[in-house]
């Protein structure tokens, strides 16, 4: 594996219990046409100091980044001129093997921008990929940068980009359709099967210092909206899309199952849409306390022994004998799915946001007899502009969702913290010169 350009020393720390490797780029530059051009040649040593396997006289790190991007020499050289900026990235190699490593900084192509990343939130899906190596049919097959809740500053624009210039502060919509198919033409581009999506295999995410993205999916942030709020637009978008699908409107009675980030952003959006009563349930009393502070009318504590019917009964009692028009299921847990169906009024809607096991036991007979609509939700579409307006006009306050901040270098600690579930949103700060919200 070879690299062209100026040699430099750098290091990478694999996580997840594997040995620490020290990795150093060599000085040799490949000739054009070298079958391994575009890949990084490195020298690797185990922690004990003994070298690893070698190739062509140069020890090669088994664990070193092998980028799959084959680039023309010119671009590579340009990238490396910028290499002193060092694109530190959080890369998932396989289940339980998360590493911080330096990756190349790429040139923006037509209609692309190169962003200097500022704030990236860690999502439950990032943690899930880290722990399981897959979510459903999305399977990690090669190293992938994590993170998709991001904001940053435009560093460089590619050709054809009119609406952004270097220095612009932007929020990033991670899902970018690759082709103009029927779903895109009908406005539901989130369902486009070939869509690019940050940090869903095989597409790289944004937990790095420099990231390329389609310019049409980067939205300028007004001065009054912070970078962290910009990063939170992603989970907020899940809620906007969910509440739209659920038909939440003035006077709605809504039951939200789960008071994690997604449950809480749904609470905020429901209130902003004029819902009259919002109930929320969770296993954690701390989360319910937070929900109450954020405007929930009722909170219901659930424990492992609560049955689906019992939970739905508590909801009815809390609403004085009536039933919610809309239930928003944010946990993916079978018990909650069942409870949500039992709780929803006849002719009402249950929106399924939480992703759980592939199969669930559903009381379909009840769904039929009471004419309940079950609506699936997958990511979002057409939400960033609305979210920005809501944040700019202070109609929604998401700032208090951020409970922990870590510099990018402490990514593992950040992931461990998220996994423990001690806070709500853990934010990684990618710009060493600006660690503010």
């Amino acid at each position, binding site marked *: 594996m070879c690299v062209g350009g100026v040699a430099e020393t750098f290091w990478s720390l694999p996580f997840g219990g594997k040995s620490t490797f020290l990795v150093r780029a060599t000085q040799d530059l490949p000739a054009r046409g070298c079958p391994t051009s575009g890949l990084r040649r490195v020298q690797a040593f185990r922690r004990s100091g003994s070298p690893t396997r070698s190739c062509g006289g140069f020890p090669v790190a088994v664990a070193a980044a092998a980028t799959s991007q084959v680039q023309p020499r010119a671009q590579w050289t340009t990238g490396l001129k910028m290499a002193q900026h060092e694109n530190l990235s959080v890369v998932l190699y396989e289940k339980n093997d998360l590493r911080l490593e330096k990756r190349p900084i790429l040139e923006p192509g037509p209609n692309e921008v190169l962003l200097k990343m500022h704030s990236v939130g860690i999502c439950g899906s990032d943690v899930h990929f880290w722990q399981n190596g897959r979510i459903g049919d999305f399977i990690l097959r090669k190293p992938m940068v994590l993170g998709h809740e991001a904001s940053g500053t435009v560093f460089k624009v590619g050709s054809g980009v009119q609406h952004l210039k270097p220095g612009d502060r932007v929020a990033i919509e991670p899902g970018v359709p690759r082709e103009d198919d029927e779903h895109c033409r009908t406005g539901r581009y989130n369902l486009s099967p070939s869509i690019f999506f940050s940090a869903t295999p095989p597409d790289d995410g944004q937990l790095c210092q420099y990231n390329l993205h389609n310019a049409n999916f980067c939205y300028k942030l007004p001065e009054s909206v912070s970078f962290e709020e910009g990063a939170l637009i992603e989970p907020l978008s899940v809620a906007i899309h969910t509440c739209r699908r659920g038909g939440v409107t003035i006077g709605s009675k809504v039951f939200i199952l789960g008071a994690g980030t997604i449950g809480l952003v749904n609470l905020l959006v429901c209130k902003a849409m004029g819902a009259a009563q919002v109930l929320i349930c969770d296993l954690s009393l701390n989360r319910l306390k937070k929900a109450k502070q954020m405007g929930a009318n009722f909170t219901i504590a659930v424990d492992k022994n609560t049955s689906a019917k019992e939970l739905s009964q508590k909801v009815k009692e809390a609403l004085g004998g009536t039933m919610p028009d809309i239930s928003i299921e944010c946990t993916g847990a079978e018990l909650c*799915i069942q409870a949500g169906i039992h709780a929803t009024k006849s002719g009402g809607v249950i929106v399924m946001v939480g992703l759980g096991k592939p*199969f669930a036991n559903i009381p379909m*007979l*009840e769904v039929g007899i009471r004419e309940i609509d079950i609506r*699936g939700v997958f990511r979002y579409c057409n939400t960033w502009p609305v979210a920005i307006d809501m944040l700019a006009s202070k109609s929604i306050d998401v700032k208090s969702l951020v409970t922990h901040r870590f510099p990018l270098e402490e990514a593992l600690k950040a992931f461990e913290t998220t996994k423990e579930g001690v806070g709500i949103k853990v934010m990684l700060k990618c710009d060493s010169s600006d660690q503010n919200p």
Partner: protein
Amino acid sequence: MSENLALVVHGPGDIKLDKRPIPEPGAGEVLLKIHSVGICGSDIHYWQHGKIGEFVVKKPMVLGHEAAGTVFKLGSGVQHLKVGDRVTIEPGVPRENCDYCKIGRYNLSPTIFFCATPPDDGVLCRYYVHNANYCFKLPECVSYEEGALIEPLSVAIHASRRGRVQMGHKVLIMGAGTVGLMNLLVAKSMGAGPIAVCDLVQERLDLAKCMGASAVFKVEKCTCPRELAQKVKSSLCGMPDVTIDATGAEQSIQTGIYATRPGGVLVLIGMGPSSTNAPLLTAITRELDIRGVFRYCNTWPTAINMLASKKIDVKPLITHRMPLEQAIEAFELVKKGAALKVIVLCEEQQHQQQQGQQQSKTLEQCQQQCQQLLQQCQQQCQQLKDQCSTGR
């Protein structure tokens, strides 16, 4: 007036022909002389099990809810009907103007009266009293039998509305019993196509083909839902926009979830077990809408118009006609699965007068219908061949 002979369920497995009093119509009601009543799967279920879900037969109950008859006597205040009018009956009558009624979804009204759902009596009898607002005049060109079939037709109209079936939509229908076939007719009349139909029984699929299904699939109990979904996709040249489940079976619901295109709709009509193991993750990541359907609302006027203008022909679904005196035999026939739609003729003397005519008429009608259906099949085959050859 003759006696009011009625088919009554007393408990699980126990139906009898009882003599009941002839009721008097109250204010806003009409007394009807019932003419034709269709037997529904739910009637059979109440007979066999004495309950459906939480509706339990606790006292003897007259069965039947798919009916048409003649106005015999008017209650006070009834303006729009007169004695002798031929009417079709909407069996669900709300008892109070609740929130659901106010938004036009009266089928969901919790206290609704519904023929042959315990404890409310049905229409399998000679004389029956009903709310006049829920009796709709039949045009001359629409027969009593068609009037009786408006009930299952209404299930299909309501399901297609809930599913937002539109022209150009590809549709998959699971189940080719009466409800499945009615959905086929309604979907076609709404301009949907191509339409695929699945069932366990070959004869039903043959009828579905004759009634306009573009593709039919015979399903076994062990058929893999994913594979079936793939076959449907190939035959429709794409995933269906709407899937209508008329079975309630887990296998069908799973097939529906795998088959329906992202952003599409799965409509649940069939009533199955209380819990279904469903590939929910697939449904969620494809943003499917799964919509339950319960009976119908605001369908009778539409159905009458469609039948009167001959846009829909429901008559091929009728396979047997039997007098009320033979109702128990009729129920046995339906239970065995040997019939599609059985009509019970409830007017006394009717069967004596018409028996001779009816049988030969039935035979002649059958022959004519067969001939028509054969011609339609041949035309459709030719069209499909032409389409294939032009590469469409």
